[in-house]
């Protein structure tokens, strides 16, 4: 009598070639030069980063590039306590929405060089870049954000950007 099999490995695998599109490509090529590029809506003047090439509110193309600061404020964040397969960072760590100075929507990135319990909404942070010779058209060109030590931004200043 043969042995009973209880389970089988069933790999699910999807192999994509991801094409980023024109506006996100400008953002990514900016990162390769150590710059953060957003785009401004010609109708409502909101600045989107990363730019998608159009304003989702007004439904019009965004054509004007805007150079953004690599400093900003933490609008909201989460502490990741549970490690998962494939994670590049050791738990616990903080993922934060960072509203860059001059932008109207926050960028999602890793926050480091701060104890998880010290992170707060309104905290001023800055990008920590990889060395110049390692810059590439990728979000990985920014290693993480870290606190600048400046005074916190008041809630009123970012409540429209959560």
């Amino acid at each position: 009598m043969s042995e009973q099999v209880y389970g089988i490995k069933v790999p699910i695998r999807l192999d994509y070639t991801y094409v980023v599109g024109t506006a996100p490509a400008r953002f990514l090529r900016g990162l390769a030069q150590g710059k953060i590029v957003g785009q401004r809506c010609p109708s409502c003047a909101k600045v989107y980063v990363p730019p998608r090439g159009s304003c989702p509110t007004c439904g019009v193309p965004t054509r004007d590039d805007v150079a953004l600061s690599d400093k900003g404020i933490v609008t909201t964040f989460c502490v990741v306590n549970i490690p998962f397969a494939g994670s590049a960072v050791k738990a616990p760590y903080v993922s934060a929405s960072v509203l860059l100075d001059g932008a109207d929507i926050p960028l999602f990135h890793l926050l480091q060089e701060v104890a998880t319990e010290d992170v707060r909404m309104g905290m001023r942070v800055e990008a920590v870049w990889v060395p110049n010779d390692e810059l590439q058209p990728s979000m990985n060109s920014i290693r993480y954000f870290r606190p600048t030590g400046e005074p916190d931004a008041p809630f009123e200043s970012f409540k429209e950007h959560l």
Partner: protein
Amino acid sequence: MTTADADPRQATPLTAPHMLEYEYTRSVGPVIGRFFGALQERRVVGVRTAGGRGLVPPQEYDPESGEPVGDFVDVASAGVVTTWAWVHAPRPKHPLQRPFAWALVQLDGADTAMLHAVDAGDESRMSTGMRVRIRWSAETHGDIHDIACFEPEDAR
């Protein structure tokens, strides 16, 4: 700063490979588990329904009556192609990397057919009703890949 290119077709698109992959372990249950266990020993088992039909691959319930099935039965490792489709250009994850047929094969002793690949070499060798036999994999692991494919019975 600059303004976006007037003609976006002038810009070289940025592309990157993106792989989405999960490896599940699927529980197969007592009936299919027995089927896979037999494949590992290079045998094929099915089940007999209350009405006497042999289901291969086996199922836990008789699809006609909904009743639990009865005993396991051994069936042959050769049978008949009941229908088929020729694959001219195999995809990377297909069981054979040369043109082959997907076929429903009714093994001798079974009343139902199972889906698998037939390595016939050329579409002209395929026909409904043709006899095929299992080509076993060099190593067996207790899953459907233990059957490498079927091959025409008249092949060497």
